[in-house]
C-alpha cells in the first residue's frame, strides 16, 4: 500500500496540480466532475456497508500500529489537501510574491491545466483509493455491498475543488478571491485546535506553523509518517501549550468578546479583509471563467447552480454572517486574534515558512467572519459563569433538607451558544451524563463520575423532519450524517464535526427544498435539525424491505387457561387487528403450544382455520410452508374466526406441560425467511423439550441480605435462539403472565438479545387480580398499535477521541459501535458507557450521533439520525457543573445491574455507594475549597445521594426485603430498557399533595388547565392524615387518602361519602362534574400524556393493606433493612472521611 500512496501523495504531483488551477482554468473543470460523480458516490454507500468506512475510522486514533493501511489513506489525503490549501494561500497572497516564488515547480504549471495536471493527479489519487477496498473487505461488513471505487471517485474530485479555490492568478485584483478558498482550507486544519486558541496570540502562528512544518516532509519520502501526525498528533501537542495558557473558564468568555470585536473591525477597516466580502463570489466567478475553459466537462449545469448562489453570496458580510452563523458548529477561526496581533510564528522551523504562514493566515481570518465569531463565542461559552456558579453552589447535604425542586427535574442545558442550543437534540431523546465533556480520561477519572449517553432513539415524535433526497450527505471518512454541528468552510465544502474531514457539498444539497432556493446548504433541514429522518435509497438495503410480519405464540396449557389471559389477549387482538402497523403486505400467523405445538392454516381459500398439531417436540418441523403466515388483509375473516374460537378451544385442556423451547424453534423456522416480530405469551416454567427449566428459587432466600443467586440464565438455549433470531431479523417479545416462579432470568434472554421487549405480570389472574388484567389489556393494546421498525441497526458515532465502552439495553452488539436490532420499538431506551481514548483538548465541542436504520411497517427503509453536541471543558469544576444527575443515576443503575449479574448483588450495591462516596470526596478535595465539615456536594449533584439511596431500595437491587426472584429480574430488565424519564419515575417517584390543588401556577393548555402541585420529598413525614397524596411511580399511580382527609374531597373526587366507604381496590377515579375532580383528572391525564404505556391507578386508604406497596416507595425513610436518607448521608460522610 505504502508505495502507491506515496506516489499519490507525493504531494509534489498534487501540487503541480494545484498550481495549475491558479492559472485560473483549472477550477471549473474540477468542479464539473464533482457534480457529476457526486450522485454515484452516494449511491455507493452501502446499507451500512458504509460501515467499512466507519470502521476505518476508529483505526485512525489507534493509528499506525495495528491498521496503518486503512487509516492512512484517508489521512494522507487530508494532509495532501492541507498542503494544497496552505500552499494556495501563499500563492494567493498578493503581498507575498516571494511565497509565490517559492513554489517554482508549480508555478510553471499555472499554465492552464496543463498537460500533466488534469489527468495525472486524479490517477494518482485513484490508485490508492482503489486499493482501499482491499483492506476493508475483510470486515465482511454484514451489510456488504459497498462499491468503493465509486466512492473514491468522489474523493478525487474533491481535491480539485480545493485546488480550484484559488483560481485567480497572482494578479492583485483577483486577490480577494484567492483568499476565499484558502481560508477554509486552513481552518480545516485549524479545526483540530480548539477555539480556545484565540487568546494565545502565539498559538496561532504555531498552529499554522506546525502543519506547514510538516509540509516539507510531505513532499519528501517520509510522507506517510509525516502525514498522519500532521493530522492528528501535531495539533494536540500544540494544543497542549495553548491550553496551558488559557485555562481558566473566565478567560474564555473574555476571549470570546475580544475575538468578535476585532473581527468586525477587521472586516470594515482593513483593506485586505475587504476581500472577505468578495470572498463568496469566487466560486461563481470561477465557474464562469472555467466554463470557458475547454476542459470542463459539465460546465453548464454547474454554472447555473453557481449562478443561483452567486447573488446570495455577494451580499455584504454582515448579512452573510447572520445567515451563515447558525450552521457553523465549529469555527476555528479562533485564530483571528492571533492574526491581528500578528506576532511572528514562533514555532516555525524554517524561515521560509514564516512568510508562508503569515500570508496564509491572513486569509484565514478573512473568509468567514461569522464563523469565526461564532466559534470564538463557543469557546467562550464553555465557561458560562452564572449557570455554572449556580450548578456549583456547594450544598451541605446534612443541613439542607429541601433539595427537591418544586417541579420534576429538567435536564441541565449544555453551555452552548444560543444557536447550537437551539439546534441541539432534545434531552428526551439523547442525553449525556456530563453535559460538559471532560477533555481527557484523566480529568474524567478525577471527577469520579461515569461518562455515558442515554438514548431513546425511536421515541414517538410529534414533529420530525423527513427528508427524501437522492443523496444522503455523509462524511466520506467516518460516514457521519450531515448535521447542524458541521461547519461549512464555504459553499462547496463542509467539515465533519466527528472526524474533521472536509467533504464536498453535493450539488443536490445546494438546493433547499424548504425555501426553494439554491446556494444555501446551511439552511437545509438536515443542517437545521438535530433529529431528522431520511428515506433511504436501495443502497441501504441488503434485501427488499420486509413486510410487517407478526407471529403470535400463545401458551394454551392448563395453567394458561386457568389464569385466563387467553380471552383477554384474543379479545384485544381482535379489537386492534386493523390498527396494527403495516400495509397491504402485512402477514400474521398463530402458533399455540402446550406439550405439543399447534399451527393454524389460515389460507384464504379455507372456510375455517385448520389446526395442525406437531407432537414431535424434539425435532420440530413446520407442517406446511405456505399459509401458516398469511396476508392479514386477504385472510382477515379467518384470523378473526380463529381469534374468536381460540379461547374456547382449550377450555377443557388438562395438559399442564409447556414445551416453550420447541415452540420458539418452530416460530424461528416459520419466520426466518422474512424476519418480523414474534410475540410470545408464556404463563409457566417451560417443562418439556429443549430449553426446559427447573425452579431455582428458594422462597426462604427471598429476603436474605446475603447474595442473591440465579440472576443469570440457567441455560444458554434462549440466548442462542435469540442470536439466531437476531441474525434472521426476528425480534421476540415476551409476555410472562405467571403466578409462580418462571425463571425470567433465563426466559428474558430470548428478548434481550433479539431486541425485543419484556412484559411481566406477576400473579396474573383474570378474576382475582383485575388490576393486573387491566394493565395487561392496556399494555397489549399499546404494544399492538405502537410503531415498529424491522431489520434495524443503530450506530453511534462520536467525536474522534471518544469511544464506546459498553452498551446497555436489549440488542445484539455486532461491532464496537453497531447494534443489531431485529425490531425496534418506540418504548425502548439504550444506555452507552463512553470512554475518552484520546485527549479532546484540541476541540471545543464533542458530538455524538446516533443513526438508526430501519424498515418501517410500510416497507420503507428509513434512517433516523440524532445528533447531540456538548462543550468540552478542561476544568474539573466545569465537569461537576455540567453533571446531569438523572442521567448519571440511570447509567449507574445499568452498570450496577451488569455488575450484579456478572459478580454479585452486594458487590453492585457497594459499587453504587462507592460511586457517591468517590464523586463527593473528589469534589470536596479538588473543587470546593471550603474546609467546613459536613457533606458538601455541588448543587448539580445534590440529589445524587438521594437517587442512589433510592436505587438501593429498588426491587432490582434491594436486599433484606422479601423480593421474588422473577420480580427482581424483571425490575432489572426494566432498568436496562426503559427510557430515562421512566426509569427516574421508577427510582424516585414524584409525590404530590392533591387535596388542595389550586390553579395557581397552573399550566394552561389548549383545552384545559392543569394544576401544578409541588413535589414532595418521599418521606412519611410529608404525609398528613388530613391530606390526599398522589404518587407517580411510572407505571402506576398511587392515590393515598389520609384518614382525616377532607370529606368534601373524598366526596367530590372519589364519589364516596366518607373515608370508610372507599372500596379497598379502587382503580379509577369517577368522572364527576366539579372543580376538584376535574383538576385532579386533568392532572392525571397530563401526567399520563407524557408516557406511552398507560399507568394504572390505585387508591390507597390509610389503613388498607395496600399501604405497604405505597410505603415501600418512601425511599427517604428507614425500612427494616435499609438506611434512611439521613443515615445514608452519615454513612457516606463517614466513608469520605475515612
Amino acid at each position, binding site marked *: 500500500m505504502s508505495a502507491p500512496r506515496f506516489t499519490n501523495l507525493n504531494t509534489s504531483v498534487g501540487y503541480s496540480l494545484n498550481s495549475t488551477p491558479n492559472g485560473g482554468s483549472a477550477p471549473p473543470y474540477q468542479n464539473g466532475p464533482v457534480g457529476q460523480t457526486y450522485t454515484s458516490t452516494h449511491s455507493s454507500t452501502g446499507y451500512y456497508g458504509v*460501515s467499512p468506512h*466507519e*470502521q476505518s475510522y*476508529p*483505526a485512525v486514533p*489507534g493509528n499506525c500500529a*495495528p*491498521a496503518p493501511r486503512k487509516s492512512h489513506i484517508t489521512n494522507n489525503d487530508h494532509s495532501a489537501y492541507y498542503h494544497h490549501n496552505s500552499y494556495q494561500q501563499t500563492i494567493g497572497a498578493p503581498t507575498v510574491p516571494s511565497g509565490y516564488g517559492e513554489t517554482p515547480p508549480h508555478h510553471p504549471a499555472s499554465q492552464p491545466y496543463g498537460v500533466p495536471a488534469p489527468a495525472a493527479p486524479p490517477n494518482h489519487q485513484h490508485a490508492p483509493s482503489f486499493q482501499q477496498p482491499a483492506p476493508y473487505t*475483510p*470486515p*465482511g461488513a*454484514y451489510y456488504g455491498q459497498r462499491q468503493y471505487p465509486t466512492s473514491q471517485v468522489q474523493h478525487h474530485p474533491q481535491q480539485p475543488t480545493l485546488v480550484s479555490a484559488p483560481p485567480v492568478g497572482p494578479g492583485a485584483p483577483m486577490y480577494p478571491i484567492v483568499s476565499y478558498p484558502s481560508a477554509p482550507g486552513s481552518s480545516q486544519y485549524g479545526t483540530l485546535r480548539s477555539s480556545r486558541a484565540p487568546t494565545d496570540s502565539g498559538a496561532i502562528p504555531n498552529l499554522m506553523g506546525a502543519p506547514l512544518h510538516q509540509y516539507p516532509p510531505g513532499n519528501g519520502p517520509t510522507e506517510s509518517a509525516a502525514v498522519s501526525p500532521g493530522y492528528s498528533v501535531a495539533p494536540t501537542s500544540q494544543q497542549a501549550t495553548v491550553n496551558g495558557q488559557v485555562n481558566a473558564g473566565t478567560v474564555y468568555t473574555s476571549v470570546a468578546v475580544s475575538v468578535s470585536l476585532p473581527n468586525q473591525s477587521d472586516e470594515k477597516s482593513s483593506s485586505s479583509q475587504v476581500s472577505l466580502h468578495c470572498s463568496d463570489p469566487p466560486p461563481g466567478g470561477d465557474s464562469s471563467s472555467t466554463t470557458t475553459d475547454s476542459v470542463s466537462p459539465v460546465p453548464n449545469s454547474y454554472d447555473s447552480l453557481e449562478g443561483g448562489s452567486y447573488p446570495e453570496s455577494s451580499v455584504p458580510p454582515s448579512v452573510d454572517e447572520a445567515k451563515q452563523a447558525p450552521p457553523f458548529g465549529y469555527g476555528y477561526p479562533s485564530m483571528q486574534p492571533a492574526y491581528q496581533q500578528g506576532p511572528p510564528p514562533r514555532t516555525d522551523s524554517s524561515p521560509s515558512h514564516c512568510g508562508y504562514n503569515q500570508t496564509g493566515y491572513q486569509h484565514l481570518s478573512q473568509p468567514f467572519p461569522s464563523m469565526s465569531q461564532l466559534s470564538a463565542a463557543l469557546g467562550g461559552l464553555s465557561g458560562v459563569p452564572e449557570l455554572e456558579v449556580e450548578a456549583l453552589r456547594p450544598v451541605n447535604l446534612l443541613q439542607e433538607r429541601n433539595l427537591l425542586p418544586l417541579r420534576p427535574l429538567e435536564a441541565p442545558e449544555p453551555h452552548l451558544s444560543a444557536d447550537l442550543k437551539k439546534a441541539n437534540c432534545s434531552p428526551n431523546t439523547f442525553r449525556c451524563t456530563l453535559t460538559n465533556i471532560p477533555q481527557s480520561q484523566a480529568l474524567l477519572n478525577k471527577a469520579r463520575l461515569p461518562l455515558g449517553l442515554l438514548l431513546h432513539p425511536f421515541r414517538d415524535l410529534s414533529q420530525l423532519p423527513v427528508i427524501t433526497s437522492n443523496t444522503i450527505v455523509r462524511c466520506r471518512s467516518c460516514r457521519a450524517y450531515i448535521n447542524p454541528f458541521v461547519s461549512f468552510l464555504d459553499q462547496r465544502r463542509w467539515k465533519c464535526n466527528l472526524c474533521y474531514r472536509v467533504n464536498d457539498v453535493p450539488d443536490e444539497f445546494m438546493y433547499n427544498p424548504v425555501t426553494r432556493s439554491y446556494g444555501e446548504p446551511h439552511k437545509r433541514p438536515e443542517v437545521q435539525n438535530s433529529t431528522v429522518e431520511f428515506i433511504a435509497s436501495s443502497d441501504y438495503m441488503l434485501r427488499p424491505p420486509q413486510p410487517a410480519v407478526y407471529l403470535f405464540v400463545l401458551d394454551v396449557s392448563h395453567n394458561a387457561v386457568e389464569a385466563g389471559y387467553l380471552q383477554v389477549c384474543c379479545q384485544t387482538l381482535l379489537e386492534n387487528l386493523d390498527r396494527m402497523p403495516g400495509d397491504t403486505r402485512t402477514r400474521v400467523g398463530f402458533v399455540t403450544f402446550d406439550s405439543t405445538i399447534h399451527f393454524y392454516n389460515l389460507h384464504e381459500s379455507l372456510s375455517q382455520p385448520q389446526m395442525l398439531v406437531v407432537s414431535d417436540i424434539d425435532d420440530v418441523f413446520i407442517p406446511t410452508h405456505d399459509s401458516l403466515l398469511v396476508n392479514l388483509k386477504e385472510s382477515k375473516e379467518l384470523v378473526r374466526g380463529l381469534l374468536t374460537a381460540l379461547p374456547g378451544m382449550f377450555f377443557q385442556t388438562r395438559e399442564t406441560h409447556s414445551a416453550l423451547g420447541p415452540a420458539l424453534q418452530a416460530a424461528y423456522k416459520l419466520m426466518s425467511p422474512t424476519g418480523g416480530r414474534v410475540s410470545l405469551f408464556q404463563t409457566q416454567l417451560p417443562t418439556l423439550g429443549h430449553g426446559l427449566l427447573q425452579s431455582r428459587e428458594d422462597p426462604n432466600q427471598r429476603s436474605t441480605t446475603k447474595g442473591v443467586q440465579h440472576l*443469570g*440464565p*440457567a*441455560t*444458554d*438455549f434462549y*440466548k*442462542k435462539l435469540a*442470536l439466531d433470531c437476531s*441474525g434472521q431479523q426476528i425480534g421476540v417479545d415476551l409476555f410472562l403472565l405467571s403466578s409462580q416462579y418462571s425463571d425470567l432470568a433465563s426466559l428474558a434472554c430470548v428478548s434481550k*438479545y433479539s431486541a425485543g421487549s419484556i412484559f411481566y405480570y406477576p400473579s396474573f389472574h383474570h378474576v382475582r387480580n383485575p388490576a393486573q388484567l387491566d394493565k395487561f389489556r392496556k399494555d397489549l393494546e399499546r404494544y399492538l398499535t405502537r410503531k415498529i421498525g424491522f431489520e434495524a441497526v443503530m450506530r453511534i458515532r462520536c467525536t474522534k477521541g471518544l*469511544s*464506546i*465502552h*459498553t*452498551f446497555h439495553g436489549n440488542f*445484539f*452488539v*455486532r*461491532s*464496537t*459501535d*453497531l447494534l443489531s436490532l431485529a425490531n425496534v420499538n418506540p418504548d425502548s431506551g439504550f444506555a452507552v458507557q463512553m*470512554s475518552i481514548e484520546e485527549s479532546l483538548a484540541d476541540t471545543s465541542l464533542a458530538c455524538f450521533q446516533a443513526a438508526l436504520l430501519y424498515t418501517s411497517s410500510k416497507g420503507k427503509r428509513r434512517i433516523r439520525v440524532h445528533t447531540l453536541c456538548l462543550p468540552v471543558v478542561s476544568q474539573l469544576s466545569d465537569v461537576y457543573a455540567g453533571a446531569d444527575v438523572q442521567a448519571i443515576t440511570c447509567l449507574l443503575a445499568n452498570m450496577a445491574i451488569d455488575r450484579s449479574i456478572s459478580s454479585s448483588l452486594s458487590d453492585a450495591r457497594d459499587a453504587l455507594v462507592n460511586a457517591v462516596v468517590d464523586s463527593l470526596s473528589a469534589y470536596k478535595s479538588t473543587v470546593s475549597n471550603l474546609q467546613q465539615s459536613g457533606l458538601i456536594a455541588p448543587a448539580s449533584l445534590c440529589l445524587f445521594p438521594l437517587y442512589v439511596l433510592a436505587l438501593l431500595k429498588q426491587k432490582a437491587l434491594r436486599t433484606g426485603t422479601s423480593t421474588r426472584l422473577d420480580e427482581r429480574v424483571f425490575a432489572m430488565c426494566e432498568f436496562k430498557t426503559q427510557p430515562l424519564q421512566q426509569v427516574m419515575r421508577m427510582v424516585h417517584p414524584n409525590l404530590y399533595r392533591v387535596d388542595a390543588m389550586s390553579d395557581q401556577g397552573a399550566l394552561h393548555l389548549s383545552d384545559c388547565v392543569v394544576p401544578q402541585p409541588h413535589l414532595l420529598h418521599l418521606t412519611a413525614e410529608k404525609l398528613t392524615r388530613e391530606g390526599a397524596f398522589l404518587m407517580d411511580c411510572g407505571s402506576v399511580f398511587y392515590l393515598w387518602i389520609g384518614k382525616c382527609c377532607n370529606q368534601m374531597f373524598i366526596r367530590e373526587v372519589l364519589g364516596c361519602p366518607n373515608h370508610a366507604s372507599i372500596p379497598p381496590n379502587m382503580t379509577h377515579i369517577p368522572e364527576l362534574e366539579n372543580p376538584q375532580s376535574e383538576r385532579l383528572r386533568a392532572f392525571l391525564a397530563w401526567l399520563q400524556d407524557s408516557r406511552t404505556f398507560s399507568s394504572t391507578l390505585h387508591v390507597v386508604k390509610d389503613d388498607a393493606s395496600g399501604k405497604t406497596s405505597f410505603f415501600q416507595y418512601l425511599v427517604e425513610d428507614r425500612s427494616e433493612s435499609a438506611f434512611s436518607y439521613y443515615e445514608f448521608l452519615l454513612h457516606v460522610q463517614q466513608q469520605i472521611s475515612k
Partner: protein
Amino acid sequence: MAFTFAAFCYMLALLLTAALIFFAIWHIIAFDGLKTDYKNPIDQCNTLNPLVLPEYLIHVFFCVMFLCAAEWLTLGLNMPLLAYHVWRYMSRPVMSGPGLYDPTTIMNADILAYCQKEGWCKLAFYLLSFFYYLYGMIYVLVGS
C-alpha cells in the same frame, strides 16, 4: 549423553509449545479483528471456542508428562498457568458447548481488553517456556 524420558518430555513439550504459541497468536489476531470491527462476534466466537479446550488439554498433557518424568521445577513453573486455566474454565459464562467466549458479552470493552491481554501474556509465557524447554532438553541430554 543419553536419551532419557525427561529428554523426550522436553522435546515433546517443545513441539507442543510451538503449537500453543500458534494458538495464542490466533487468539490475539481474532480479538484484534473484533476490536477493529472486521468480524462478526458470533462467527469469531464460533471459531475461537473449539480451540480453547484443545489448548488447555495440550498444556495439561505435557504437565502430566513432566510429572511422570519428575521434572519438578518445570512442573512448578507450569502450575500457575494450569491453575489459571482451571479457574478460567470454571468461571466461564453459561454455555452449552465447549469454550469460553460468549458473543453477547465479548464486545464489552473490558472483556475484549481482558481477552487481548490474556492472549499477549500467554504468548509471552509460551515463548519463554519454549526457550526454557529447549534449554531443559539440552541440559538433560548433556547432563545424563
